[in-house]
């Protein structure tokens, strides 16, 4: 489903060249639950940005569902993000002025779904996250764990091919963090493809496969043994 071939990302600032990703090759199949591990500065966020089509690689090829998207323009990438990916960020990234349900509706708005259907789907996604009673709350009226569940509902509402989670438990206390990870485990068991970026081995253990990167290169790629 996702196939990267010799993918590199090089930032040049003046005379300095920073190699963030160095010739990465990787493939992820449908239904996998993959954790990408690494210390900060290892290039894991860059990798996630490129996989999520938020950024483009300097060299190399990226095939998504068999299609080479390396040459896509900004608008095509926006459409890919909208249709294929659901993002869950460390900082939740909800729009503070919108209610929970309006936040969840947003991907459908940009997908051009009609107002009535949008509302129904958004409410269903929120109910799935156990937030049926918080539909009209604003992010500031919700706890961190609840906000992250709204963000997951937003990621799911468009039935994406891949859910990309960047340190989803980073801003949460350990109890809420565990709840969120249980949600990801549940989503995986329902057949969703999940890519999780983290530096925390305890979080990574929820995944089935663990890829470790350091200095822009994959240093290990292994099955996670069950605890």
């Amino acid at each position, binding site marked *: 489903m996702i196939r990267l071939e010799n993918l590199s990302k090089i930032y040049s600032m003046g005379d300095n060249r920073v190699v963030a990703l160095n010739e990465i090759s990787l493939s992820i199949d449908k239904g996998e639950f993959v954790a990408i591990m690494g210390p900060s500065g290892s290039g894991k966020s860059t990798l996630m940005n490129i996989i*999520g089509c*938020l*950024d483009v690689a300097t060299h190399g090829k990226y095939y998504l569902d068999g299609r080479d998207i390396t040459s896509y323009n900004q608008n095509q990438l926006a459409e890919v993000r909208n*249709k294929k990916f659901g993002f869950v960020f460390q900082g939740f990234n909800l729009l503070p002025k919108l209610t929970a349900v309006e936040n969840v509706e947003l991907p459908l*708005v940009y997908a051009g779904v009609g107002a009535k259907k949008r509302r129904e789907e958004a409410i269903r996604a929120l109910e799935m996250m156990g937030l049926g009673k918080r539909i009209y709350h604003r992010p500031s009226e919700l706890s961190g764990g609840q906000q992250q569940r709204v963000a997951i509902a937003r990621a799911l509402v468009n039935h994406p091919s891949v859910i990309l989670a960047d340190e989803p438990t980073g801003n949460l206390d350990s109890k809420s963090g565990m709840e969120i990870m249980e949600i990801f485990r549940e989503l995986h068991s329902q057949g969703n493809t999940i890519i999780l970026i983290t530096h925390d081995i305890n979080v990574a253990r929820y995944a089935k496969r663990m890829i470790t990167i350091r200095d822009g290169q994959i240093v290990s790629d292994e099955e996670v043994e069950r605890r």
Partner: protein
Amino acid sequence: MKFTRAIRMAISSILSNKMRSFLTMLGVIIGVTAVITLIALGRGSTQRVSSQIESLGTNLIIINITGGRNRSVTQEDLQRIKGISGVSELAPVLSGGVTVKAGNKNTSTSLEATTPGYQQVRNTYVQLGRFLLQNDLDMRFRVAVVGVDVADELFGRRDVIGEEISINGVEFSIVGILEEKGSSVAGSDDNRIIIPLTTGQRLLRSTEVRTFYVSTLSPDVVNQVVGEIERFLTRKFNDENSFRVFNQTQLLSTINEATATLTMMLSGIAGISLLVGGIGIMNIMLVSVTERTREIGIRKAIGAKKRDILVQFLIESAVISGLGGVLGIIVGFMGANFLSRILNIPAAISADVVLLATGFSVGVGIIFGLYPASKAASLNPIDALRYE
């Protein structure tokens, strides 16, 4: 994305920062108010002047003899002009400023010495008594027809037929009171005295008729008659610069041109304030784009295209300035009515001005929103997401 939703989104974003939105709008509000008020007052006064001139009669021609001191038209010349086809009536006028006394009261007023034809030519009739008669001229009677202001001033009442007044020390008796005309661009028409031409020639010690009025049978023949008169006078004086011929249509278009230019100039100045308002919008939109960088990043991450963001911000600035425009129209209405009451100028607010102002203010919003909106639209999603 649906347009109505985009507008609702823009309105909620504007409402979430009411004070700032209002201050941003203020520039547009002031601009539109100024445009509406100035155009309304400009047009109102143009209309009033036009209707005043039209009430004098559009078939009136005024001839002034200028040039040399002893140049004037004779009785025979006037007869010849009266014979031109299309001319219905003619009235020579000798005028001057005089002092009038009655009892112990006196006032200064303007005197016109003329013939009975004046009545028809100048559309000036008496409300009491009678106008001048040919007999008054032939016999050089010292009779006078007075305007209501003169009667009010000297006697404090208007039924003054038969009263005696002294004009520059010569006794006259009042035989008629003119209809009240109100004041016009040329001053008050009610503050004047009309006496027979022949009597006036003696009183003013001048026999030279240098002004006369001609009325035509219909407004359509005015130009033709003007041409004939010009030809006649050119032949007589052998100099086409020694006289001036005016007609009301000419006067009307001259005044209309003048006021239109003035209105244009004033609304141009008002337009500049709209421009300044637009710059204010651009400024605030730029601040807003910076503040909302993270929001833009989130929207882009979940699939907003460049166009979506562009449209969102464009609509926002168009709604701000459009709303400002609507408020400006309302305030402009009130301002025009208020000013027309204190300045005593009629206000004419027409639909085209309102449409123009609305269109212009929305246009200002779009034009000045374009740069901030395209700046927002071209933000890189990861940079925008990282922005704190």
